């Protein structure tokens, strides 16, 4: 058996047969989701930043305040880490499938909105976000199956 697979590997290396398309694993789907949870966190930082802008009389005063600088730096940091991981993760997925996962940020925006900004949750939002999740799972099943 070992020899058999060795032969296939040899043929693949020498392009005698087409190597199988690399399938994503379940682990990769979790990484993909984690990267968009991270991305949705940048929205938290951006929202705090914009609130800081409104809290001061002048823009100039605002952008040199700790209230602005810390969340602004956090947003940049989060987006930089997101970009680093994204570049790795899109190697393993069809772009259309990887990008569709972004839609789950709707769900996370409800979670952050509720727990961090005390925003109200309405049923339409929850139902909509859950429908989106079903769609994303169907998309991902194409990549992992």
């Amino acid at each position, binding site marked *: 058996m070992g020899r058999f697979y060795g032969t296939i590997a040899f043929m693949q290396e020498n392009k005698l047969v087409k190597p199988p398309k690399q399938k994503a694993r379940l682990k990769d789907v979790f990484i993909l989701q984690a990267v968009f949870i991270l991305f949705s966190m940048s929205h938290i930082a951006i929202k705090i930043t914009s609130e800081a802008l409104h809290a001061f009389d002048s823009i100039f005063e605002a952008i040199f305040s700790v209230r602005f600088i810390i969340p602004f730096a956090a947003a940049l940091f989060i987006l930089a880490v997101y970009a680093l991981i994204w*570049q790795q993760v899109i190697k393993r997925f069809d772009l259309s499938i990887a*990008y*569709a996962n972004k*839609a789950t940020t709707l769900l996370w925006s409800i979670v952050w909105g509720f727990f961090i900004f005390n925003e109200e949750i309405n049923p339409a939002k929850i*139902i*909509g976000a859950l429908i*989106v999740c079903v*769609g*994303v799972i169907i998309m991902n099943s*194409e990549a992992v199956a």
Partner: protein
Amino acid sequence: MNIYILISLTAVTIASFSQVILKKSSGKKYGSKIREYLNPMVITGYGLMFVSLVFSMIAFSGLEFTNVPLLESVGYIIIMVLGYLFFKEKITLRKLAGMAIILSGIFVYYQ
């Protein structure tokens, strides 16, 4: 057509092309990890994303807040088409079904 809708759709299209460039770059072999990120394609990709952000901001100024994410969801469709054109990604029935469900979920969310 409302000019702001057009600007928003332009932003989405630019962002979609930036993803294509990033994906193109991710498929290449580079000498070092740093080169994987600091190369003309990745820099162009993120540059375009910045341009798209500026367009989005302009669009925000003329559209109701909730309309912008709705317009941005057009990006999922554009990227599926670009994936087919540039990477020969198959548009399967399952992908279309997933996409239709995602889009309907987004409409329910913002209704």
